[in-house]
């Protein structure tokens, strides 16, 4: 049994006129403990919706998510999300934002212990000195460092990253990705990340799950990424294997887009080899 099991999860939204729109169908994904899995797909394939379902913020229309043997029924402190738009509380300082999470996760701790712990995570993400700044006074990169610190500080079983670096400028993105990897290496959390940045997915993850385009998107393929860690951007980019994986994924995404434009209906589903690969794991 895998640590996190997404079992035949589907999501439909009801539209006006009583019709319902199926975003994705029968997604089956298994993650081992400590694994870093990225999901890549065009916008509209429902990857963020799937992440919200794992987080417990949305309900699946069909199927179930099982974490550590228990079915997920709602949000909980065993799963923390790092949001694309940071979702920091704008009226609270950096320190207060993290402290709120720490107090929630460790209600039995006393004041001093909480303070030391919060400060340790602020130092870890390099925000020492900015403790009492409000999020609005910080750059996008710094805000997401707060988001990462808040999520890691809770020490969840699963860390959910929802396009966390999409709103961060390209120059900062590389260094914050490396920082994320460093924190992850130290904690070895199980991470599920949603992104449409192929290079980011390859750089960070152990496995990449590829979604076809929505509506009725399917999980089409899982690519393994076996580069040794710690990884450095410059070294990775020179490996022929890196470029092969990158080219394959790019080609896949391009094909999805073309199939969409040809008949307006998504392909995938039938031509999928996922079943085999998953059963080999379980």
């Amino acid at each position: 049994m895998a640590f996190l099991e997404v079992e035949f999860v589907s999501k439909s939204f009801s539209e006006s006129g009583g019709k319902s729109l199926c975003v994705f169908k029968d997604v089956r994904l298994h993650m081992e403990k400590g694994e870093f899995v990225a999901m890549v797909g065009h916008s509209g394939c429902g990857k963020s919706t799937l992440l919200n379902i794992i987080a417990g913020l949305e309900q699946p229309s069909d199927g179930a998510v099982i974490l550590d043997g228990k079915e997920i029924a709602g949000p909980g402190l065993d799963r923390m999300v790092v949001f694309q738009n940071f979702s920091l509380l704008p009226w609270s300082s950096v320190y207060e934002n993290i402290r709120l999470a720490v107090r929630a996760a460790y209600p039995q701790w006393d004041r001093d212990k909480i303070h030391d712990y919060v400060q340790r995570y602020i130092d870890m993400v390099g925000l020492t000195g900015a403790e009492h700044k409000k999020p609005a006074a910080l750059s996008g990169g710094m805000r997401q460092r707060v988001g990462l610190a808040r999520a890691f500080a809770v020490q969840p079983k699963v860390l959910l990253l929802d396009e966390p670096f999409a709103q961060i400028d390209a120059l900062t993105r590389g260094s914050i990705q490396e920082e994320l990897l460093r924190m992850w290496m130290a904690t070895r959390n199980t991470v599920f990340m949603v992104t449409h940045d192929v290079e980011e997915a390859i750089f960070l993850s152990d496995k990449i799950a590829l979604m076809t385009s929505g509506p009725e998107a399917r999980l089409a393929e899982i690519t393994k990424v076996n580069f040794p860690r710690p990884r450095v951007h410059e070294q990775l980019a020179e490996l022929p294997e890196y470029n092969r994986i990158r080219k394959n994924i790019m080609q896949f995404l391009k094909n999805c887009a073309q199939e969409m434009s040809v008949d307006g209906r998504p392909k995938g589903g039938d031509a999928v080899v996922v079943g085999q690969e998953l059963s080999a794991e379980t």
Partner: protein
Amino acid sequence: MKGERKKAFGSSILLLTLFLSLWQLTTKPAVQGKSQGLPGPAAVAARAWEMVSDPFYDRGPNDKGIGIQLTYSLGRLLLGYSAAAVVAIFLGVLLGLSPALYRALNPYIQILKPISPLAWMPLFLYTIKDSGWSAVMVIFMSSLWPILANTAFGVAGIKRDYLNVSALLQLSWLRRLWKVVLPAAAPAIVAGLRISIGSAWVAIVAAEMLIGGTGIGYFVWNEWNNLQLTSVIFAILMTGLVGVVLDMGFGSLAKVVTYRE
């Protein structure tokens, strides 16, 4: 910007001077301390000086200093207004968090909102049997609706993201209220508080005219009965001044609770 401010200030002073001189020129000077028709600004200023220099004298029920009258009015305001604020913010949070409850109660709120707070006066006098407390209840009714409507609106409009964070962190109801809901809705709540302190101050003058006895509203009416128009005009200016101070207080509170996203 600075030049523009100077210009505006100069124009304000100019308008005031024009208005005061016109007022002075069109009114007849007092004869033997008795004003002829509407009193001029000089007579009002003299009376104002008299009242302000001894604000807390008490010479029986019909003759008290302006300080005492304002204290009564502000005391009633404070009581009725703070009670209304507590009730309205509490109800507003409940309504804002529960769309079903909001829809259920909204028709009643819509009907009760436009009722003049003074229209309740007879009912309060009949049930409470105390004119002072009835005036407090009128203030309560006048402050309730703007705070309630603004709080419900502000809470209902809280960004999904903030509620998601509090859901992920499994915050208790109280912590969620204190750390997320109230700070998020604070700008809207304070806007409601600011609107209703104004309407409450307007209502207290009218209520005190009705109940008599004490307060700035009663003072205005009493001086009218004494045909002391200088005092009436002075009291009118005082209510305006107090209103401005109250509004400025909430103006600075609004600055404190506003946040940048």
